């Protein structure tokens, strides 16, 4: 059964290679492209490539792929598992090499054509939008699948996958979500380059749709390819880290915190009040404002925790209600200056003048600088941050013998000293492009990293965190072991709320929304919901949360240009998130031993027993 499924996959890969564009050397702004394919280029709009640019090697390479597919189909039917594995490993390696060769040939040809044109006096390179495409990606992913399949042939293969289930389930869910998202896009939009052209054949239509889908995801992922794009992605990721942590923290204690949007809103309100109105000296103001953000979120989360602990009120609905209430409170504070209460006029000072609902500007001391100004103030590279990181890591890993509390204290001291010392060191001048200088990534990102570290240490290195996780895994057992469940519930919601509230440091104190140091009623509180996807995708692990927040940051950054180029709403990212949540909830449609820890343990035990039996067989003369 598994083998015939593999044959079907091979057929599918072959079909994709036949129909899909392999690479696109040339593309207009609206997406119309010149599509390369082994059966000849697909070019319904009649774009003209520069003279002398040919891709004749695609045909022969395609023949090699066909051979590879055929051999792979045969290899899986070999009787001996070892030789199956060896064959598949070799084929997978060959496939990867073939993909690398294709990529090399393509990029060389394109850059040669560009150079030739520039040498001939062109002002701009003629080929500016070029990329590999689905046909080649199919080969790449197929080769990776072959390598995985090879590992699966060897003993303990299934246990190997099950052990990695923390990665397998989210990644597989992501793939499924991408496939469904691609289907949605393909259904809703006409294929690229085929709209309004007379006499388009079926082949052009299919290729156009596949090109549309591939290009959509290329645009979505494109920010990782440039430094400004990366900064932009991390700017989008910063609040997601906070809200992802807020949701994860609840999950760890068995609570579902859907209230991150409200907690963020109230955190932002508190941060604004502190940042605008607190009469504190500069060096104290920023810490106070950051603390206020955490406090606001903690209050909003804590109310729900208390209601649950005291009255058993369901936290899911309550956090949702608190989101709506928080939105009302924000509007009340910032949408107008004057209100009528029972006929009396009440004036509020918070809304700044103007049509838009926004607060006054933060005081100078309450502003978090842009990341680029921390890394390179006045276009001079500063050693402060790098040295702080090195000193902190050195102190943390250099004093392994110390007790954790002292060790962390020392690390913090080392970090501060490193930062101060690094600031004094002479830097070197760097040039910062205007695209980079305009990115909104700010120091709040560093606070997010600290929050991740806090999450890690609190949950996995303290007894309070251990109790919290025990409460989440088995509340009755934790109760029996002496954990005060009610207090844990309140504390969890307080900390989760504080983490969500800290996201306000990005939007309000760091001007991460649009570059102005104000709180606006348009603050995108819905990133609190995105935190749910981040938490699930990151499997409630610190590194996982960071990676998934970054992934969504990249997608959000890419979504901005998607709308401009292809007329697809960037709401597609919200749909992708929903799909990822749904697919993770159903365990990626994988067998149950990937999601059920008991069954997973069973698989691993079986694999171990099998291995021991084999060892006993291969060394029969050993013991007796």
């Amino acid at each position, binding site marked *: 059964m598994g083998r015939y499924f593999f044959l079907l996959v091979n057929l599918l890969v072959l079909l994709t290679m036949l129909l899909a564009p392999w690479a696109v050397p040339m593309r207009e702004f609206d997406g119309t492209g010149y599509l390369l394919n082994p059966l000849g280029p697909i070019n319904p709009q009649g774009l003209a490539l520069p003279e002398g640019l040919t891709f004749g090697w695609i045909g022969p390479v395609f023949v090699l792929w066909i051979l590879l597919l055929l051999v792979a189909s045969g290899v899986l039917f070999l009787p001996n598992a070892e030789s199956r594995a060896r064959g598949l490993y070799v084929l997978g390696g060959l496939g990867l090499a073939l993909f690398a060769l294709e990529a090399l040939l393509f990029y060389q040809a394109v850059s040669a054509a560009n150079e030739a044109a520039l040498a001939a006096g062109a002002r701009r390179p003629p080929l500016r939008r070029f990329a590999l495409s689905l046909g080649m990606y199919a080969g790449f992913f197929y080769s990776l699948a072959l390598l995985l399949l090879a590992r699966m042939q060897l003993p303990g293969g299934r246990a190997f996958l099950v052990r990695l289930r923390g990665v397998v389930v989210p990644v597989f869910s992501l793939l499924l979500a991408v496939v469904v998202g691609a289907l*949605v896009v393909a259904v*809703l*939009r006409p294929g690229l380059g085929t709209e309004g052209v007379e006499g388009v054949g079926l082949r052009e239509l299919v290729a156009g749709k596949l090109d549309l889908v591939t290009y959509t995801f290329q645009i979505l992922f494109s920010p990782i390819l440039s430094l400004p794009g990366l900064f932009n992605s991390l700017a989008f990721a910063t609040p997601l880290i906070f809200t992802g942590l807020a949701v994860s923290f609840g999950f760890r204690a068995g609570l*579902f915190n*859907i209230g991150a949007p409200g907690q963020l809103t109230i955190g932002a309100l508190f941060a604004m009040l502190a940042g605008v109105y607190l009469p504190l000296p500069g060096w104290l103001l920023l810490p106070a404002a950051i603390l206020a953000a955490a406090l606001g979120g903690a209050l909003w989360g804590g109310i729900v925790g208390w*209601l649950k602990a*005291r*009255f*058993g*009120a*369901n936290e*899911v*609905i*309550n956090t*949702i*209600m*608190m989101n*709506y*209430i928080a939105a*009302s*409170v924000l*509007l*009340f504070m910032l*949408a*107008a200056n004057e*209100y*009528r*209460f*029972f*006929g009396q006029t009440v004036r509020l000072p918070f809304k700044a003048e103007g049509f838009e609902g926004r607060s006054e500007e933060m005081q100078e001391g309450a502003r978090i600088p842009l990341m680029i100004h921390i890394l390179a103030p006045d276009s001079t590279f500063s050693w402060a941050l790098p040295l702080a990181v090195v000193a902190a890591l050195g102190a943390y890993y250099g004093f392994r013998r110390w007790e954790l509390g002292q060790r962390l204290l020392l690390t913090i001291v080392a970090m501060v000293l490193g930062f101060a010392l690094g600031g004094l060191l002479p830097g070197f001048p760097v040039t910062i492009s205007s695209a980079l200088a305009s990115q909104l990534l700010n120091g709040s990102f560093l606070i997010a990293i600290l929050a991740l570290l806090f999450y890690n240490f609190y949950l996995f290195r303290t007894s309070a965190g251990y109790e919290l996780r025990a409460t989440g895994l088995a509340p009755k057992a934790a109760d029996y072991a002496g954990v005060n469940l009610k207090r844990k519930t309140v504390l969890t919601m307080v900390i989760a709320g504080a983490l969500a509230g800290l996201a306000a440091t990005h939007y309000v104190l760091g001007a991460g929304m649009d570059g102005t140091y104000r709180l606006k009623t348009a603050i995108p509180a*819905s990133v609190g*919901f995105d935190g*749910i*996807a981040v938490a*699930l995708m990151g499997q409630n692990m610190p590194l996982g949360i960071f990676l998934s927040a970054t992934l969504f940051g990249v997608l959000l950054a890419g979504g901005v240009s998607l709308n401009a180029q292809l*007329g*697809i*709403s960037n*709401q*597609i*990212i*919200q*749909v992708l*998130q*929903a*799909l990822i*949540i*749904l697919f*993770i*909830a*159903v*365990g990626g*449609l994988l067998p*149950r031993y990937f999601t059920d820890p008991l069954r997973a343990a069973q698989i691993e035990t079986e694999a171990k027993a099998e291995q021991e039996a084999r060892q006993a067989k291969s060394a029969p003369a050993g013991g007796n």
Partner: protein
Amino acid sequence: MEIVIALFFSTLRQAAPLLLTSLGGLFSERSGVVNIALEGMILFGAAAAAITVNRIEVATGGQVAFWIPWVGLLAGALVGGLVGLVHAIACIRYRADQIVSGTAINIAALGAPSIVLQVLYNNTSTSQEVVNRLPNVPLGPGSVSILVIVAFLLVPLVWWVLFKTPWGLRLRAVGEHPEAAETMGVNVIRMRYTAVILSGVLAGIAGAYLSIGFLNQFIRAMSAGAGFIALAALIFGKWHPFGVLGATLLFGFAQALAIQLQGGDILPATIVQAMPFILTMLVLAGFIGRSRPPAAVGKPYDK
């Protein structure tokens, strides 16, 4: 007196979508499946109804006909039921965490309609206004949408189905003690699928009421928490049709009052808008009576 009458009709109009949704949720939760996705199902239903009616109007050249809004209603119910099916497959077949699955649907309901709207109307937040709305029926000194009448007539019907028919008995058994129900020969899985899909259909109808009955277009996130309030009404109403009727009337009254107070001198609109949500929290905290959920609610069923 005029204000009292206006408040009365406004309460009926506000309570109707809550009631429809809540009765849907009643089936789902009585069968043992938490349906936090009601909010999303309303939105999907509302979008489907408004877009369907608009497309028919475009195709027929703006024709006004008796049947057009009913097709829209059907589309809303169908799409709601389909979303219910997705939730059911996730929760029953794949034993997903019911709240996580529901949340996914709610998030999708914020994004998916926007993508379709962008393609059809080149705008991500509203659909085109429709001419063919669900008919109103006269009621005393005013008139209400026919779905309002339907919603209130459904209450005794649901009560009868749940408490006076064998199917209702089986449904309740499945939600209280699925193993016992299974030994008595009840198909637990099928009961749950039916109940969850039914809740999607009713929520979809509630959505259609919002977009082509109450208003004349779809607006992004137009349900504004109605699904969650319906869920709270379910808890407040002790998972009983008549209790749900009382609870939704209370919430509907709070919303109607909020609308009446808006623009007046008494309270600012932003605060008034938050009142139904605060009321919901007070209700959930048990300040206004305690209630016990079906015993097996939220738990996946293993044969």
